C-alpha cells in the first residue's frame, strides 16, 4: 500500500493516453457498427491490390478499402454504407468488378450491413455495457456492505475496458461486435479478481480487528497473489492459443481479452483496494456491528 502513489500515476497515465487516443483518433469501427460492405475474396492467382481498388472505384464504389489478408491471393475489401442500395445490388456490382480482374475469383465471405442495423447494434452494445456495470455495482454493494469497496471495484471495472478501448484506438485494429463481447467478459472476469481480494479483506478484518487497515489490505493482497497470478497465467495460455491459432475472425476478440486480463490483474492487485483505503475503509465499514458487539461483551 506504501507504493500506491506510483501505481496511481501509472494507471492515470495509461488511462489518459487511452482516452486521448479514443477522442482524437477514434476507433476503427467495423461494419457491424457503421453499416457497409465487408468482403473476403480469394483469387486463383496473386493480384495487385491497387488494380482491384482501381476497378472497384471505376465501378462506382466510393473509397473502397482493399487490403491483402493472409496471402497475396486473399483480399479483404471494405466499402462504406450506401444509402439507397439493396444488399443484392451491391453484391452483384462487387462480383462483376472482381470478375473483371480475374474471372476465377471466389467470394469467401460477404457481409452487407444496412446503416440502420449498424446504428442499432451500436446502441445495443452501449446498453449491454451499461447493464453489466449496473448489475455488478449493485452486487458488490450488496455483498460487501460498503460503498468504499464498491468504489474501488467501480474504478477497476472502468479502468480495464478503458485500457482495452485505448489499445484498439492506438493500434486501429478493427473494433467489431466480438470485441464488445470480449470487453464485457473482461469486465466480468476483472471483477472476479477484485472480488476474491475483497473476500479476503473481509475475512482478515474479521479475524484481525486491531490491525491497521493498510496492513490488512497488504496481507490480503499478498495472500491471494499466488492465486491471482496462477489463474491469469492459465487463462492467458488459452487466450494466447486463441490469438495465434483461432484465425483472423477471432483475432480482435482474443487481443481484447488478453489486454483486458493483463489490465485486470494489475488493477485488482494495485488499484482497487488502494482506492478503498484512500476513501477511509476500516473494519467497521465491512462489519458495521463489530464495534458495538465488542463493547457489549462482558
Amino acid at each position, binding site marked *: 500500500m506504501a507504493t500506491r502513489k506510483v501505481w496511481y500515476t501509472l494507471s492515470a497515465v495509461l488511462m489518459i493516453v487511452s482516452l486521448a487516443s479514443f477522442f482524437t483518433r477514434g476507433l476503427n469501427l467495423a461494419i457491424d457498427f457503421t453499416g457497409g460492405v465487408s468482403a473476403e475474396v480469394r483469387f486463383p492467382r496473386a493480384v495487385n491490390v491497387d488494380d482491384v481498388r482501381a476497378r472497384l472505384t471505376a465501378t462506382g464504389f466510393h473509397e473502397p478499402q482493399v487490403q491483402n489478408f493472409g496471402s497475396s491471393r486473399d483480399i479483404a475489401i471494405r466499402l462504406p454504407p450506401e444509402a439507397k442500395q439493396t*444488399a443484392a445490388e451491391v453484391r452483384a456490382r462487387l462480383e462483376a468488378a472482381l470478375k473483371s480482374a480475374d474471372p476465377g475469383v471466389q467470394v469467401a*465471405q460477404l457481409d452487407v450491413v444496412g446503416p440502420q442495423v449498424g446504428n442499432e447494434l451500436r446502441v445495443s452494445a452501449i446498453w449491454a455495457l451499461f447493464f453489466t456495470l449496473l448489475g455488478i455495482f449493485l452486487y458488490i454493494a450488496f455483498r460487501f456492505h460498503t460503498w468504499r469497496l464498491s468504489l474501488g471495484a467501480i474504478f477497476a471495472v472502468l479502468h480495464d475496458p478503458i485500457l482495452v478501448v485505448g489499445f484498439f484506438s492506438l493500434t486501429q485494429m478493427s473494433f467489431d461486435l*466480438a470485441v464488445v463481447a470480449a470487453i464485457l467478459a473482461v469486465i466480468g472476469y476483472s471483477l472476479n479478481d477484485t472480488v476474491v481480494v475483497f*473476500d479476503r479483506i473481509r475475512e482478515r478484518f474479521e479475524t484481525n480487528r486491531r490491525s491497521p487497515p493498510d496492513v490488512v489490505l497488504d496481507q490480503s493482497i499478498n495472500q491471494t497473489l499466488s492465486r491471482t497470478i496462477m489463474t491469469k497465467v492459465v487463462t492467458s495460455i488459452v487466450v494466447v492459443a486463441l490469438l495465434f*491459432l483461432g484465425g483472423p475472425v477471432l483475432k480482435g*476478440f482474443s487481443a481484447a481479452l488478453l489486454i483486458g486480463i493483463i489490465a485486470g490483474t494489475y488493477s485488482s492487485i494495485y488499484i482497487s483496494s488502494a482506492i478503498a483505503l484512500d476513501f477511509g475503509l476500516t473494519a467497521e465499514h465491512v462489519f458495521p456491528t463489530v464495534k458495538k458487539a465488542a463493547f457489549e461483551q462482558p
Partner: protein
Amino acid sequence: MLEYARWKHVLIAVVLLLALLFALPNFFGEDPALQVARKDHNPVAADAEQALEAFLRQRNVHFVKSYIDSGRVMVRFANVPDQLAARDAVEEQYKGTYITALSFAPRTPEVLRMLGLRPMPLGLDLRGGLYLLYQVDVNAAVNQALEGYAQDARRALAAANIPVKDVTAVGAGSDKPYSVRIVLPPDADLKAGRDALAAPLQGLSISAESLASGSAITATLTTAQIRERQDYAIQQNIQTLRNRVNELGVSEPIVQRQGIDRINVQLPGVQNSAEVKDILGRVATLEFRLEDMQNNAIEAAQTGHVPLGSKLYNHTRFGRPVLLKREVIATGDQLTNATSGQSQEGPAVNVKLDARAGENMLRTTRQNVNKRMAVVLIEKRRESSEVGGQKVSREVTDEQVINDATIRGVFSNNFQITGLGAGEARELALLLRSGSLATVIYEIEERAVGPSLGRDNIDKGVTALIVGMAGVFVFMAIYYKTFGLVADLVLLANVVLLTALLSMMRASLSLPGIAGIILTVGMAVDANVLIYERIREELRKGVSPQAAIRAGFETAFSAISDSNITALIAGVVLWVLGTGPIRGFAVVLTLGIATSMFTSLMGSRALLTLMYGGRRKIARLSI
C-alpha cells in the same frame, strides 16, 4: 477425517454418465450428405426410400448409408464427388417428385440416432451459408387495416343516406395516428352518423367533435389492435418465407422473428444469394375469380382467341388451361386465415375472409351455385439476366391458378375447399397464406460465408481448443502435481458437461461459441486454484492433510461463488441483449460458469475424497 455424502457421489456419477452420452454424438464427425424431400411436403415412405437406394446402386453411385429422418431421406457419402454425382442423378430422374439439398449428416451410429441424440448444429460461420435479415413494414400493415375500415365506413354511411364530406385513414406519424377520420357536413345528423358507423367500426374507440366546417368522428385503433395487426403481418411473412425457403430445398433452414419487426433467415450451405433472394423477395397476392363456363378453355388455348371479359390461364396447378372472368371477388389482403384440416369428404382447406370480401362472396355464390370458382396466385419478383455483359433486372409477374372448385352452396366469409389430398390441402393452405402477404419486406443485412472458409474456421477453432487445453493441463500438472491432475480431470469433465448441455439445447455452435468453450476452460481452473491455494495455506499452518482439504473447500466457497456471479452478470446481459454469434458466445459463457461451479466444487471434492478420504492415515499431500 474427510467424508462426502454417498448420494452426492452417485449424483455426480449419474450426471457425468448422462453428459458423456449426450456429448458422444459430437465426436463422430460428419459426412457429406444429400437430403431428398418430396415436393408436395408429404413424408417420404419407406418403400420410396428403398427405391431411391436401388436407383443409386443401379447408377453406380456409392453411398455409405441412407435413412429417413423427419420425413426426408438422408443419404450419406464417403466423399463430395459421390455426393454431387448422386445429386445430379436424383435431380434428373425425379425432377417432378423430389427436391434435393446438399448438406452434412453426422456419422453418429444408428443406436445413438434412434435415441434422439444428435451433435450440436453448426452455425453458418462454421458451415458456410447465407444469413439474411429482413425488415417488415409493420406500419403498412396497420395502414392497410385502416384503409379497410375507411372503406367500410364510406359504404355504411352511403347505405344510411348520410352525406359525407371526407373519410380518411390516418397512419403513423401524424398527431392522431392509427385512426379513421370521418368529417360530416354541418347540417348532417351526427347521431345517425354514429349509429350507422357502430357496426363497421366495431371495436375501435370512437370520439366526436364539432368543427367550424361540420362535425368529425374519429375512430382510433387500440394499442392491442395495432399490436395484433403488426404481429399478424410478421407471422404472415414468416410463414411465407418458410414456405419459399422450403421450396429452395435447403437443409435445416432457420426462419425466425427478431425483435419487433425483423425476420432473420439462415440458409446453411447456400452460396448463390441472387437466386435465393429472387425467390424470397417475391411479392404475392391472390384473386378469387369465377370460371367462365360459357366458353371452352381448351379451344381458347388452341386458337389463341380469348372471349371478351375473360382471361386465359395456361399455367395451372392441375395441368389444364382455364378461362376466368375478369371480375375479382376477393383478393389476398382480404384473406384473414387459411388452414388445412379435415372435413367429411376428407382433407380440406378452411378459408376465412374479412367482412367486406364476405359480402361480395355471399352475393356471388348466391347467383352462381354449381358453377366453378378459381384461385389465382400472383407473384411479382425481380429477375436479373445478363444482356451483353450488363446485368439487367426487371420485374416479372407470375400468375398461376392454384385451385379450381365447384361452388356447392351459398357462403360468405367462411368456407371450405375440399376434394384434395392431405399433402395438397396443406400446400394449398400455405399458398393461400403466402398470397395474403401484402406487407412489404426489405432486406437490411446479408452475411455470406463460403464453405471452405467455414471448414477453415472449424479447424482453427478446434486446434486452438486442443492446444489451449493441453497447455493448461500440463501447467496444472506441473504446478499442483497430483492435485493438478485431479483438476485436469475435472476440467475435462467440465468440457464434456458443457458439450452435452449445448447438444441437448440444440444451440447452434459458432466460432465465438468455440471461443467461449476455450475461455471456460481457462476460467474454470480458477475455482480449483482458489481451493488448492487455500489447502496449501492450511498445510502451512500445520493442519492435517484431510482437515486441510476440507477447510480448503469450505473457505474458498464464498470467493468462488462471488467471483462467478459477477461473471454470470456479464454473461446474462450478453445473452439477453446480444444477437447471432454474440448470443452464442454468451450462452456458452453462462452455461460454462454453471458447469464449472458444479464440476470444481462437487466433482473435484468427490474425487479427492475417494483418493484421500475415510480413516486412512495420510502423511503428506502432493500439491
